[in-house]
């Protein structure tokens, strides 16, 4: 029993290490004080004031638009890439091509930011909403591709596309009557991940956002110049909630897809 107690308290410490900063942020988002240093009393007013902050709301709209565009773009590209990679006949070095797809996951984001910026500048591509959406899609592509690829591989093993073609369907008919509906949940779950990646991205956006495009993470960063106000804490809590909801629905989707 003592051994179990020891293990339990050890785990508690680790979870405290992980979640204490978030807990402090959460608590201080209700602090009724302008300068958020000492606890003055409980209030909801910072959450209310978030919704009257026009700059913040426009940053939110920009971020949502970016995330939607980037996740759509990354899903379509991820679907095509996975289809090609899983349906092409085996060739030498195929494994290298497959792992090249996930290398950007490990790449420091600063490197991506510098690379993208120098590319856009050299190529004389003006920085705007669409270049940023493209860059976000690029960062999110490994997530959508790996999610869709796993599903397409299992579909291939079950010979369902073979069965469709055997019954007279062309490759295209087999794709949209069999592959697409059955890969749907995997595509959607990849898109949710891509949405999260784009939504929270700071480094890349900071490098190439250009003038006039303010995303939510950039907005928070600029607000922090005047100290961590309770308003920022409240905003961060909202974002945290959104992320948790997105990730939870993605996990549920994966589990439901696996059991069906």
């Amino acid at each position, binding site marked *: 029993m003592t051994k179990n107690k020891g293990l339990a308290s050890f785990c508690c410490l680790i979870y405290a290490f992980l979640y204490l900063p978030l807990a402090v942020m959460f608590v201080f988002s209700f602090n009724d004080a302008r300068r958020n240093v000492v606890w003055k009393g409980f209030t909801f007013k910072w959450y209310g004031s978030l919704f009257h902050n026009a700059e913040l709301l426009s940053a939110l709209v920009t971020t949502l638009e970016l995330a939607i565009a980037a996740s759509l773009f990354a899903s379509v590209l991820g679907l095509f890439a996975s289809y090609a990679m899983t349906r092409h006949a085996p060739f030498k070095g195929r494994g290298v091509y497959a792992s090249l797809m996930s290398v950007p996951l490990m790449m420091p984001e600063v490197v991506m930011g510098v690379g993208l910026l120098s590319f856009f500048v050299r190529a004389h591509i003006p920085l705007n909403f669409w270049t940023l959406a493209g860059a976000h899609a690029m960062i999110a592509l490994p997530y959508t591709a790996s999610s869709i690829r796993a599903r397409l591989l299992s579909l291939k093993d079950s010979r369902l596309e073979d069965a469709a073609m055997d019954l007279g369907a062309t490759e295209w008919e087999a794709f949209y009557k*069999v592959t697409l509906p059955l890969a749907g949940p995997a595509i959607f779950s990849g898109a949710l991940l891509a949405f999260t990646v784009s939504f929270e991205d700071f480094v890349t956006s900071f490098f190439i956002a250009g003038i006039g495009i303010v995303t939510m993470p950039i907005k928070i960063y600029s607000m922090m110049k005047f100290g961590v106000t309770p308003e920022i804490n409240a905003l961060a809590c909202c974002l945290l909630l959104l992320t948790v909801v997105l990730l939870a629905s993605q996990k549920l989707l994966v589990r439901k897809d696996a059991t069906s």
Partner: protein
Amino acid sequence: MPGESLLEIEGITKSFGGQTVLKGISLSIKKAEFLTFLGPSGCGKTTTLRIIAGFEDPDAGRVLLEGKDVTELPPYRRDVHTVFQHYALFPHYNVFDNIAFGLRIRKLPEPEIQSRVNEALALVKLQGFENRRTSQLSGGQMQRIALARALVGRPALLLLDEPLGALDLKLRKEMQLELKSIQRKLGITFVYVTHDQEEAMTMSDRIAVFNLGRIEQLGAPRDIYERPQTSFVADFIGAANVLSATVLESRNGEVRLRLEDEVEVTLPHQGGLPVGKGQTLKVAIRPERIEVRYQDSPANTDNVWLKATMIDNVYLGNSSQIFLLPFEKPPGRVLMAVSMDAEHRERRASGATVWAEIRPSDILLLEPNSNGSHA
């Protein structure tokens, strides 16, 4: 028109990643025939089937369907349907939509689809299952739906890739007879892949025995069993005692052999021998063609009598398996005999002296295996 050829395969070869899986497959399948590809796993039978269906391209050779070269055609341009090993039913469609899939692709009018799907469901005895989801079906029912889906388009040729492999023994026996009767009723040509020799014997008009990427023997079940040409076929179809034999003399429709370098026998044999005088070949004797006797031979008999030591007598309920050692020189090859005679049920001590009686015509001369080995 039975007898007319429906499918011709000419010199098909195929390798995957440097490994040759088909080393020249040629055969001709007649209309309304039930032909089985039989062989152990990895022998090339499923690859041959996938080449006929169009899922794989052969490295060399041609596939002719009704006289037309279809080697280069994709699966959807061939009048061939397949029943897959794990059924491959579409999980996002119900039973009706699964069966109707091919008909809808061909854009048949909906009333005709309706009546043909009902007909197909009646054929596999699953009327009333139209609206079931595939996840609500048992293995046997999925198998029937897969069959109905493949038959509803009335293909010239139906390919079946170990369709009963996942079913339990009793259901498998039932389905074997049912498949055979459906095939007779519709008059569709079936090419059936299995590794189960009993399944092949039950259903087939002809069996092609595959081994190591070649066809070892092609013939009616009875030919394959009673006149196996190679030791592989003798051993794979039923059980066989395979012995080595040296040719001593061959003339006047008779051949004299020395079995296992010990016992001389004379047997009738027409035609040429696969090897010359003084050389060694393999012979096979079926266990049920060896009679175990407890007394020595009467004087006037043409049969071969081998004096032997009984090693073991295993009672199997409907039969007895008797193991004999007729040869003294090491390694001392053991013969297995199977008999349903009541006299063997009484267990005798091992070590007893017995005689094995064999009719000369039951000693089957074998050719070397198609890969050249005598294994």
